[in-house]
């Protein structure tokens, strides 16, 4: 299997969603190629790190401002009652 072909399948191989027919060829190559094994392994670890990492917490003030803005907009677009008479 040519390197280019392997690259095209690398995402699926890493994700474990590779077509079984192509998987065999891939596995054959991997069995004899330590660098490729390490690359696949470190790609998986990279993804895991980002997936498991702590997301950025939304600052409390941001949250408050967001919800204030949402409530404001909601009122503006959903007001159906007659407007109070001008004083």
């Amino acid at each position, binding site marked *: 299997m040519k*390197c*280019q072909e392997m*690259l*095209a399948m*690398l*995402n699926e191989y*890493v994700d474990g969603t590779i077509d079984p027919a192509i998987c065999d060829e891939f596995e054959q190559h991997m069995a004899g*190629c*330590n*660098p*490729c094994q*390490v*690359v696949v*392994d*470190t*790609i998986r*670890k*990279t*993804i*895991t*790190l*980002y*997936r*498991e*990492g*702590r*997301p*950025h*917490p*939304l*600052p409390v003030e*941001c*949250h408050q*401002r*967001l*919800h204030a*803005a*949402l*409530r404001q*907009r*909601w009122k503006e*677009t*959903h007001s159906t009652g007659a407007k109070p008479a001008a004083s």
Partner: protein
Amino acid sequence: MTKEPIITVTLDMELVERAKKGDMDAFETLANRYEQRVYSLALRMLRQEQDAEDVTQQTFLSAMQNLGGFRGEASFSTWLLRIASHAALKVIRKRKGLDTVSLEEATEEADSYGTIPHPEYIADWRQSPEELVRKNETQRLLEDALGKLDEKHRLVFLLRDVEGLSVKETAEALGLSEANTKVRLLRARLQLRELLTRTLGDPERRVMRAHN
């Protein structure tokens, strides 16, 4: 042993339907549910807190405005992340002084596997992800690496690998072909792997590329 209480979570679609009928609390519940993820995506794309906050607000205001047109073909979260992605890309293009006329056009550039750089620094890491995740300096390293990616690739990685959208959903969210999405994803993954391995890799176990 006490029994676990059964917790029912109102499904997104049910909340959407209630919101469409005028239930503001339902919409707020949706906002509470997803604001963290939207903010996190925006911050990682824009790397600036005020911009991230603005995009977060824009995203939910836009969702509120367009809720009537959302019929659930995609999941609510995918739909929301699509809005957030476009809002973030718009900010980036504005920063670069580019027109925002056609975001789809601008982002859909043909890409191929032929020009993807091959891995250079190949070494197993000294610590496992589980050990690394607990350290503060790891977070810094992750963010620095993300910042080095072209935003086209960064966005695909964030949606697919961090947010867990499928390739198909990611492609739909960004108006890309699945093929193009996969190439960008691979570029992102390989580049991040490369950057992280330079710091986390064990130099004593470094192996050289066996082939081209």
